[in-house]
């Protein structure tokens, strides 16, 4: 399993070029999260892919070749942190929800909405922790979940920054 961090132009078509590299080769993307960065002309993407190392190194090379891709980093190669956010909708009382959150360690949970007989909880943790948390819920009143997909970032000086712009003149 590899976590890949990608910085790319925030352009129509850019995401489909990146995703196309995977579908074309028959590889499945386990999770994908993408949003603009503090520079709105760039999007940052975290991807989780379950493939062998040789496949990953090929994918990294091919990703680098995509014209819209500015920078690629294999988070599995550097020290990094990652987490996932999930929103869960449960048919329970607020009291019961609080109890679930109290027992959810190491997951950090918070009630974010309560409407009619439904409660929504936001939980944050590593993706295994989120997996485990979801498994622990009682199926009968567990109605929906949406997960962000993994978000990751290298620690310390392991930046994913764009190199200075290359000016090609001729």
């Amino acid at each position, binding site marked *: 399993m590899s976590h890949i961090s990608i910085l*790319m*132009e925030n352009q*129509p*078509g850019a995401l*489909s*070029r990146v995703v*196309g590299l995977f579908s*074309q080769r028959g590889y499945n993307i386990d999770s994908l999260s993408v949003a603009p960065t503090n520079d709105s002309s760039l999007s940052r993407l975290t991807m989780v892919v379950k493939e062998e190392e040789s496949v990953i*190194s*090929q994918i990294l*090379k*091919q990703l*680098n*070749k995509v*014209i*819209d*891709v*500015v920078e690629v980093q294999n988070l599995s190669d550097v020290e990094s942190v990652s987490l996932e956010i999930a929103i869960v909708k449960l048919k329970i009382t607020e009291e019961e929800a609080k109890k679930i959150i109290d027992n959810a360690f190491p997951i950090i949970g918070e009630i974010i909405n309560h409407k009619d007989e439904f409660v929504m909880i936001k939980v944050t943790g590593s993706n295994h922790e989120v997996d485990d948390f979801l498994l622990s819920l009682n199926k009968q009143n567990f109605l929906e979940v949406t997960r962000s997909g993994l978000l990751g970032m290298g620690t310390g000086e392991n930046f994913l920054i*764009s*190199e*200075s*712009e*290359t*000016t*090609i*003149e*001729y």
Partner: protein
Amino acid sequence: MKKESGGSALIRALADENVDLLFGYPGGAALHIYDAIYQQDKVQHILVRHEQAAVHAADGYARATGRVGTVLVTSGPGATNAITGIATAYMDSIPLVVISGQVASHLIGTDAFQETDMLGISRPIVKHSFLIQSPEEIPEVVKKAFIIAKTGKPGPVVIDVPKDMTDPNHLFDYQYPKEIKMRSYSAPSKVKENHIEEAVSLLENAKKPVLYAGGGIIQGNASEELMKLANIMNAPVTNTLMGLGAFPASHNNFIGMLGMHGTYEANMAMHESDLIFALGSRFDDRTTNNPQKYSLNAKKIHLDCDYGSIEKIINVDVSLNGDAKKILNQILKKIDPKNIDKASIELWNKEIQNWRETHGLNHDLLDKKFHQKQILPQQVIQSLYKSTNGKAFITSDVGQHQMFAAQYYKFDEPRKWINSGGLGTMGFGLPSAMGVKFAYPDEDVVCVTGEGSIQMCIQELSTCMQYGLPVKIINLNNRALGMVKQWQDMQYGGRYSSILYEDSLPDFVKLAESYGHVGMKVEDISELEERMDECISMKDKLVFMDVYVDPEEHVYPMLEAGGNMSEMRVSKTKKTF
């Protein structure tokens, strides 16, 4: 400063890129652009008869000249017809800029008349693509498209232009950018000095080296450097199908093409080698046979402009990512002739010579003693070689005829052999020959084809008449989809499924004549050479020479599927394993 509309800016930008020829076909979404073409005279538009042919023609032009080929098609069916051509160029890394009309921006996504998602359809077969979002960005996008198409690993770039972006009533100040900033597109990093040293040390220590050169040497204009290296080392050189001409076939160190239908000696040399230096070739499956059994005793150096091609199929000892010419020059500077193991290489060359003597190609089949009732396809290529003094541009289609041309026409110069190696597109031969002839009107341009392939773009005989393109078409007529037949002979017990059509073939002589060209039919070996001379000497006529060849002939050698590089069939009855 003259104001331009999106349509006229597009054409002016092409002129600013020194584009002289634009191959295309008009239609609704491209009408503003066509009107802009009419009102200028710098860029000449060539009207083909099918959009696939427009792309192949631009592709042939690009391969022969080393420049970027340009194409203009309309939306919808115009764009989809261009797809096969784009994929062909993509697989062989040919620099093209393909401009497609698109429905007006407010109609995109509504299933409007002649709307197709060109960016979506072409995405896996382009190096990059653009959708024009404002007329003002057109000059900059064109500039970027040309840079991307021709730098690094070249490839086709699509510019999709919604009709409203070319509105003749919307005018703006035109300026063609001198330079472009692209933060996400960078030149390959410099090769590390120690990699050069490692490569040099392997080369100096090799006892059985092979220089395995592909299309990258042609595209990278590095033939001269390759020649220097081969001469310094006295090393054997093999070319891939895409690389023919990168190293002169008549040079002593040339051991022929390698791969699926490569020469016996080239494939044997690859198998027995102790050092394979891959230069601008990508270990394509047609040249490695089974990668697990590939040249196990050889160390490998891989020079390629495409980082992604290195270690994609075969692991290597030294990788050299970057410009072939530059890197070869660095190697030439470092390598010391005194350190080369000349004695071992001499023995190695003898070993290769022995292989050639056992199962090498016979280049003297025109000799009377080899004459049979039916003309052999190989004899036609040899006759063509003689009549053109080995100097013609040869384009080809796909099939047995293509392999015979590759094996028997001895290419001495780069860019003279023009074929669809990667995609293997039947229909490529005639339109690509047109592109070459436009670029080199005074040179002999010959399309070697088969009666199957030629019918896939036969309509271009009309284009050739309109523009006066006296290309020569040599049709190796075996009355069958010969290459498929060969496989059905070898692997399907001769069950000929859907490969025969003898009774419904056109009379190619009359067909050529109906377009105003010259037709010739040759069935007898005794008249082959004379008719070939006659054909080639008609400098201002397109001649369609329909040569009836032996339909039973197979292409050999042929690597045995799943085997190593030494496992070949060398004739219908003999194999090496």
